[in-house]
């Protein structure tokens, strides 16, 4: 009787793991307690051990994520012993498996070095294993024809199809946030800024990174009717309620908001993103994350897997959320906040800079570290 | 008989004069590092080594080895002096200095007890090569607290090796009296390992010589290890200026000085003659090295 090898539950945060590598070939004799394969979750790579002596039979191809409990192989007592592949497969087909794009690690390293989005490249070259050679070709092409920025421009364009070649964006708010948006858009071919609006009349007529401040927010409707832009992005962050009100007012009028996402932001598989989100450089949105509308994620914001973020939230630089965190609407995070897994944060809460959240936060809370105190004077 | 006594006296006096000169030169700043003298223990060096055949037998010595060296290889006295002075013309090119001496069949080193297993290995080589040679190793009672000596005694007994362990029991380990070092008497140690032991007065050069001669004769026949414990007394400091013993204790032991014991037995004329000869040899040596 064959012994099944199934994908174990590696930690409570992951209901699946990737079968990285078989350590012995098909048909190899393995001994009890010997490592037979390596599986990987978001947290770690671990070995699976043989439960008994036997002949190793591979069932599942490597490089693919399998749900916990999925049978990935067998240990048989003899070479001839039949294994019931069908029986095993039945257990696995509840959810289709996710196939990881294929590339060599060298290609991965070079892609990183040259700033190439491999997911995107893989989509362009389906059924091809991406190699060092291909990366070099892409780099060479890009360097000779800067306009042909296909592979080198990761953005949501390929995940959200608006059916237009270049999305024209109107920026609301003329502060530092506007500069951030303009800087990001300068490296995105599929989006362009047509202007900035700000209610501070002294700014009107000025230029931000070469883009004009056209007037105050009352111009939105006019410009929309003149079809001067395709979508809005809001950089208003000082007052969360104000930010929310702006988003809701224009959305009700039927004017769409854009997502502006810096090329260096890593957006992983199975991520859902609403509209009106601004995600600055260095961010990381892990697999399974749901991000609502009108959120502002400053540089280096990390949202770990399966976290759910509501609407109108702002994140200070380098704030990190662990896996399966729930954030309600209108939450404001300071700089470098750290949130433990499974934490829930209620609506309209404020979490001050540097806080490490280890417990839930009720709605309308303000969380702050105890004030830094001078412990002694230097002289 | 008198000729032998004269011979022993002259050898011991040469060692004494040589080492007293070293202490003087040290205080005058001619020497670096440290010197350990065997003043008061000369009979041990002379009595044992006179019984050896330096062509075939080997000696492993320790930090207090000038006496052993001069008795073993008097012809290299200038080489020894140059070595202690730190000259390249020294027997070890000035690298060794006082504690690390080597000429053919003679090895000394500065780690207490560390030469005993080496001497055991040399004894093993003598035995394997059927050289009928004896490996002698000198230690003091202080070193007899080192564990490796007992590992060596076990192997010498186990393999029946021609190893002669000479313990110069000078009653002091640097500054610590032997009674604060040892919980049992040293004479009882080697018999427990199956190595026969003889103890004699180490300040009586004839006793030392006669006993050594007898032991070595036996060892050339049975190729087996022996231990010889010599009761002696270090009249000088451990190195220089580091002696806290009372003047009463030192004065009592001056009476047992191996040189004085012989001076009683020899005529005044001979003693004076030998003293002059030794003085001349040392002053010639100093002249050779341009030291006044």
């Amino acid at each position, binding site marked *: 009787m064959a012994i099944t090898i199934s994908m174990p539950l590696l930690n409570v945060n992951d209901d699946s793991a990737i079968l990285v*590598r078989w350590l012995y070939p098909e048909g190899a004799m393995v001994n009890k307690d010997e490592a037979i394969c390596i599986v990987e979750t978001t947290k770690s*790579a671990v070995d699976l051990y043989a439960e008994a002596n036997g002949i190793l039979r591979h069932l599942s191809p490597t490089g693919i994520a399998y749900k916990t409990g999925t049978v990935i192989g067998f240990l048989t007592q003899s070479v001839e012993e039949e294994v019931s592949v069908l029986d095993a497969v039945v257990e696995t087909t509840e959810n289709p498996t996710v196939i990881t794009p294929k590339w*060599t*690690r*060298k*290609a991965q*390293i070079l892609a*990183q*070095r040259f700033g190439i989005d491999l997911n995107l490249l893989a989509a362009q070259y389906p059924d091809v294993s991406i*190699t*060092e050679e291909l990366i070099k070709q892409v780099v060479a092409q890009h360097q000779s024809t800067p306009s042909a920025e296909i592979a080198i421009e990761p953005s949501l364009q390929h995940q959200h199809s608006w059916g237009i070649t270049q999305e024209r964006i109107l920026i609301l708010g003329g502060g530092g946030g506007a500069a951030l948006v303009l800087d990001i858009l300068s490296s995105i071919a599929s989006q362009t800024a047509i202007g900035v609006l700000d209610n501070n009349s002294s700014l009107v007529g000025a230029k931000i990174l070469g883009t004009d401040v056209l007037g105050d927010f009352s111009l939105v409707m006019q410009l929309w009717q003149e079809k001067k832009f395709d979508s809005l992005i809001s950089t208003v962050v000082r007052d969360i309620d104000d930010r929310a009100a702006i988003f809701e007012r224009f959305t009700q009028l039927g004017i769409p908001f854009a997502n502006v996402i810096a090329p260096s932001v890593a957006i992983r598989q199975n991520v859902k993103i609403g509209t009106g989100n601004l995600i600055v450089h260095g961010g990381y949105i892990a697999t399974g994350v749901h991000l609502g509308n009108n959120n502002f994620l400053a540089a280096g914001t990390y949202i770990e897997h399966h976290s759910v973020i509501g609407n109108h939230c702002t994140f200070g630089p380098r704030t990190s959320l662990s896996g399966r965190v729930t954030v309600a609407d209108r939450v404001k995070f300071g700089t470098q906040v750290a949130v433990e897994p499974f934490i829930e944060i209620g609506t309209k809460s404020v979490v001050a800079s540097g806080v490490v959240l280890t417990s839930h936060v009720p709605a309308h809370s303000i969380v702050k570290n105890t004030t830094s105190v001078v412990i002694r004077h230097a002289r | 008989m008198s000729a032998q006594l004269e011979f022993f006296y002259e050898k011991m006096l040469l060692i004494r004069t040589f080492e007293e000169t070293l202490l003087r030169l040290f205080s005058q700043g001619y020497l670096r590092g440290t010197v350990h003298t065997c003043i008061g223990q000369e009979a041990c060096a002379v009595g044992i080594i006179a019984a050896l055949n330096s062509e075939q037998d*080997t000696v492993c010595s320790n930090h207090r080895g000038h006496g052993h060296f001069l008795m073993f290889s008097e012809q290299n006295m200038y080489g020894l002096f140059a070595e202690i002075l730190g000259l390249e013309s020294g*027997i*070890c*090119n000035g*690298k*060794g200095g006082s504690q*690390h001496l*080597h000429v053919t069949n003679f*090895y000394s*080193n*500065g*780690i207490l007890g*560390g*030469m*005993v*297993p*080496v*001497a*055991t*290995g*040399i*004894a*093993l*080589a*003598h035995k*394997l*090569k059927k050289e009928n040679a004896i*490996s002698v190793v000198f230690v003091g009672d202080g070193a007899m607290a080192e*564990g*490796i000596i007992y*590992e*060596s005694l*076990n*192997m010498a007994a*186990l*393999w029946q090796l021609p190893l002669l362990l000479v313990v110069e029991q000078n009653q002091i380990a640097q500054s610590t009296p032997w009674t604060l070092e040892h919980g049992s008497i040293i004479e009882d140690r080697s018999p427990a390992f199956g190595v026969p032991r003889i103890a004699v007065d180490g300040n009586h050069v004839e006793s030392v010589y006669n006993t050594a001669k007898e032991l070595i004769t036996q060892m050339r026949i049975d190729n087996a290890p022996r231990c010889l414990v010599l009761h002696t007394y270090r009249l000088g400091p451990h190195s220089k200026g580091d002696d806290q013993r009372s003047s009463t204790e030192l004065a009592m032991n001056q009476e047992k000085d191996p040189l004085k014991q012989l001076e009683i037995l020899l005529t005044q004329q001979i003693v004076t003659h030998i003293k002059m000869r030794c003085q001349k040899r040392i002053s010639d040596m100093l002249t050779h090295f341009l030291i006044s």
Partner: protein
Amino acid sequence: MPTYLKELQQGLFTLLTNDQRIILLGEDIIDPYGGAFKVTAGLSTQFPGRLITTPIAEAGITGVAVGLALRGYVPILEIMFGDFLTLCADQIINHATKFSSMYSAVSCPLIIRSPMGGGRGYGPTHSQSLEKLFLGTPHLKIISPSNFHNPGRTIQQIVQYESNPVLFIEHKLLYSEFLQVSNEIIHVNLQSSEEGYHTAIIKNYTVGNPDLCLISYGGTSRFLPKLLTDLAVEEVRIIAVLPEVIDPAPIDILVPYAAAARRVVIAEESTADFGWAVGIAGMLYEKLWKQLDCPIKVVTSERCVIPTASEQEKEVLISALKIENAIMEVLSWL
């Protein structure tokens, strides 16, 4: 195919046959036991009187071997576990190496063989890589062949060329390994020094420049066949350089390979900090300042006791995965 153990046994057999100066000493080395790791199995039967089984007195037997070496023999002393070399340290450092250097015209051709390394659950005092403690000892040579070398050839080379003490470090897990030769993916070249010692140069590619130079020695070679093969599939081009003479540091041999690759990982099984890898890294920085693309990465075992429990031991010791991660980290520098 010959194993590391068989080749070493064969080397000792040849030495005993051809050189009457050779004497083997050590604990439990004679038949029928033949040594804790069977390196001397059969030899005491074939060469009566040439192998001496000794009392359990590592310091004392080292001294005895020194005495033999001073008197015309070439003793090859086995210290059963490398961990016990701490007991031999005084005889090695203050005696054997001093005699050959501070005395005039004295040679002390002492060879001390000892197995180091973990991975077999022997626990804190039988699994260490303590050659580290002897690194940099004047007039002591430390030689540790990997399984890309032939340890039997090496020990003969030592007897032929050395007149001063040598520590010959084996790794417990190499004994049963086959000696590695070139295959379709891995190309092994042995570069010979003037003294006739080999440095194994191992490439997992045939054309192009290396992406990274991996420097290591001894037992870590057990990871390399698989690691280099796996990385070849990933197009990561590695040139691994394994000298068998590890001290004095073979820096002149290593520099050209490190310079060519511009990215360097140095791996050793001993504990972190102040070890061989760190020392080599220091010397490479001195020679190759501004010629490297990124900092040198050193991979070692953890600086703690080596636990007996299998999982804990794995966490502490160097592993293929740790080396692979270091390689990836270095390659990830822009």
